[in-house]
C-alpha cells in the first residue's frame, strides 16, 4: 500500500477510536498529495458520520448594521479603513430583521445570526433592540437566534444568554501567529477574552475563520488547534473572497482541492464539531462544493453573506438531498 494512503488510514482509525491527531499529524494531513485527496475526504466523511451523523446544520445571517467599522481587518469589506464601496447603514428596523429571519426559516435554516459591524455594542439602544429581537424571532419565526456583535462586556453576555441566544459568534479568523498580519486594531488575546467571557456566561460559542488570507498551511493547522484549545464546537470556515479596496484584494486564490484538504484537516482535529462552509464557497469551490460536505463538513451557511450574495437556498437543499443528507431541526426549548 502507498505510504500516504496507509498514514491516512492510521490517523482515521485513531480518531474513530476516540483518539486525537497531533499537530504534526495535522500538518501532514493538510499536505496530503493530490492523488490521495479524494481518499482523505472519504475518511474525513467517516469521522463526520461517526461523531456527527447525517444531519447538516443550515444557518443564515443578516447584516444588521453595516460598514464604517473602526477595526482594520484586512479582508473585510466593512472596515472603515478601506474604500470598498460597501453599503453602509445603521441598525436595521425590527420589521426588516423579522422579514430576513422569516426568509431564512423558509429557506431551511435552523438558526439565524444577527451580525453587526463595529468593535462592540456601544450603542445602548441598538443593544436593547437586539435583546428584544432575540425572543421575538424565536417566538414569532420559530428559528434559533445567534449573534455576532463584536466584543461584549460580561453584563452584555449575561443578558444575551438570558434573552435566549443559541450561540454567540466570534471568529478568531486565523492562526494566533498570523493574526497581527490580518488585524492590528485588536488582538487574538482580545478574541480569547471575549470568547472565554461568553463561555463563562454559559453561552455556546461559534468560532472559526477565513482561509486564504495568506497564512501558511501550518498556520491553518495552528488555527484548528487554537479552536480545539478553546473548546469550540461550532466552526464556520470561510474562504477569502477578495474584496476590491482591501489590502487582501490581490490575494492568490486557493485551489478547490487545497480548500477541501484544509476542511478535512479541521474535521480530523475537531471530530465532534459542527464545521460549516460559509462565505466564499461558491467562488472558490465552484463545482466541487458538494465534495466539502462529502469531505467532513456538516454545516452550511445558506442565502447571502454579509456583503456578497450566495446561492439560491433551493439549490443547496437539492445538493443535500442528492448527497443523502438530512437537516438538523431548530432547538427552541426555553
Amino acid at each position, binding site marked *: *500500500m502507498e505510504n500516504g*494512503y496507509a498514514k491516512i*488510514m492510521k490517523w*482515521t*482509525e485513531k480518531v*474513530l477510536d476516540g483518539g486525537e491527531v497531533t499537530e504534526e499529524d495535522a500538518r501532514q494531513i493538510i499536505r496530503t498529495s*493530490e*492523488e490521495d*485527496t*479524494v*481518499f482523505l*475526504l*472519504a*475518511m474525513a*466523511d*467517516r469521522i463526520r*458520520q461517526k461523531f456527527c451523523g447525517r444531519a447538516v446544520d443550515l444557518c443564515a445571517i443578516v447584516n444588521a448594521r453595516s460598514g464604517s467599522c473602526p477595526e482594520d481587518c484586512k479582508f473585510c469589506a466593512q472596515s472603515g479603513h478601506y474604500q470598498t464601496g460597501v453599503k453602509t447603514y445603521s441598525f436595521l428596523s425590527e420589521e426588516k430583521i423579522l422579514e430576513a429571519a422569516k426568509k431564512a426559516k423558509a429557506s431551511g435554516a435552523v438558526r439565524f445570526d444577527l451580525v453587526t459591524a463595529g468593535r462592540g455594542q456601544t450603542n445602548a439602544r441598538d443593544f436593547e433592540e437586539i435583546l428584544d429581537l432575540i425572543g421575538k424571532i424565536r417566538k414569532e419565526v420559530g428559528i434559533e437566534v445567534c449573534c455576532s456583535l463584536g466584543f461584549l462586556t460580561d453584563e452584555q453576555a449575561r443578558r444575551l444568554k438570558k434573552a435566549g441566544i443559541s450561540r454567540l459568534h466570534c471568529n478568531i479568523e486565523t492562526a494566533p501567529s498570523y493574526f497581527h498580519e490580518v488585524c492590528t486594531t485588536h488582538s487574538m488575546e482580545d478574541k480569547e477574552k471575549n470568547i472565554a467571557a461568553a463561555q463563562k456566561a454559559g453561552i455556546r460559542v461559534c468560532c472559526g475563520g477565513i482561509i486564504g488570507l495568506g497564512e501558511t498551511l501550518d498556520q491553518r493547522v495552528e488555527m484548528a488547534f487554537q479552536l480545539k484549545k478553546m473548546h469550540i464546537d461550532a466552526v464556520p470556515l470561510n474562504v477569502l473572497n477578495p474584496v476590491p479596496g482591501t489590502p487582501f484584494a490581490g490575494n492568490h486564490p486557493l*485551489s*478547490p*482541492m487545497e480548500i477541501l484538504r484544509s476542511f478535512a484537516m479541521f474535521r480530523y482535529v475537531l471530530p465532534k464539531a459542527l464545521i460549516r462552509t460559509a462565505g466564499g464557497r461558491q467562488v472558490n*469551490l*465552484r*463545482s*466541487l*462544493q*458538494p*465534495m466539502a460536505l*462529502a469531505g467532513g463538513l456538516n454545516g452550511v451557511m445558506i442565502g447571502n453573506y454579509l456583503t456578497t450574495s450566495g446561492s439560491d437556498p433551493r*439549490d443547496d437543499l*437539492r*445538493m443535500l438531498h*442528492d*448527497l*443523502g443528507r438530512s437537516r438538523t431541526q431548530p432547538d427552541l426549548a426555553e
Partner: protein
Amino acid sequence: MDSSVASIMNCADQVIKGIPLDRKQARALMHTEAHDTLFLLASADRIRQYFCGDSISFCADINARSGRCTEDCRFCAQSGYYHTGVKEYALRSEEDLLRQAKAAEAYGAARFGIVTSGRGQEDPVQFRHIVSAVRKIREETGLEVCCSLGLLTEEQLNVLREAGAVRIHCNLETSERNFPNICTTHTYQDKIRHIRRIREAGLEVCCGGILGLGETEEDRLDLAFALQKLEICSVPLNLFTSIPGTPFAHRKGLTPMEACRIFAVFRFILPRAVIRVCAGREKSLRDLQAMAFASGLNGAMIGGYLTIEGQPPERDRQMARDLGRTGGEAGQDLS
C-alpha cells in the same frame, strides 16, 4: 476499520495488482451501503489514478441525421415508432459536419463522433458523404474521428478506416437479459456480431450503455462484465433521461449517488477503460458531477448530446482543472 471498508479496500488492492474481481466481489461492491459509498468512490478513484492517470478524455458528437429511425429502442427520442417531437432532418452537409467538428475542437474536445439515426447505412450516397466528411475532418482538424452509424458491413467499416476513422461506437445499451425489454427490432447478438466486425476491420470499439432503464443491479453487472470480456477501451455511460412520447417516458432514472456508485463499480471491473459519462449527466448528477469524476470516471462528452443540450464546455474544463485533472487524450492543457 469495519469489515465493509476492509473488503472494498481488498477489492481495490486486488484490481491494482491486476487480478480481476469475480462476480461475487463485484456484486458486493454494487450493494455498498450508503455510509460506505464515499469510500467506494475514493477507491475507484485510486484505481483510475493507477491505470489511467489524470487526464479526462473529452469528446463531442454531432447528430448528423436525426429521427425517423426504423428501430424501436424504447428510451430513444429518435425512434420512428414514437411521437417525441424530436427535430428530424436528413444527413447534414459535409461543410456543416466540418464546421461542428472545428467548433468542438475549439471548445476542448479531443475526439469527434459522427452519429446518424437509423439501423445502418443503406443509402450509398449518404454513406459516401459521411466518409468524405471523415476525411475532411481528419485533414483539417487535430481531432480523432469516431463514427456511430448503426450496424455496418465489413466493407463499410474498411472504407471508414481508410478514410481515417479510428473508433466505431456501438452501445450494448444494457444486459443481454434486459435487451429485449428495451428493443425488439434488433438483438443483443446483432450488436455483439457488429462489435466483432469492427474489431476485425482493425478499428477500436467504443461501447457502453444507458443506466436507469429499469435494469437490475445484476443487469448492470452483466453489462460491465460483457464489456470486460469484449475488452472495450472506451465505455460511454449514459444516464437515462425520460423522453415524453417514448414507452419509457414515465421511468425515473437514477439518483446522483446511485449513478456515482455504479460508475465506481464499472471502474473496478474495467480498470483500464476510458469510462465516459455522456447524456443525462447534468440532469441526473446535478451538483454531483464533480464527485462522479472523483469516482473513477475519466471521460466525458461535452457540448451537448444528440437530442438534449449540455452545460457550457467551459464549465466542464473548469471542473476538470479544479479537480486537478488534465484534458484530452494526451493530457492537454485545459486553460
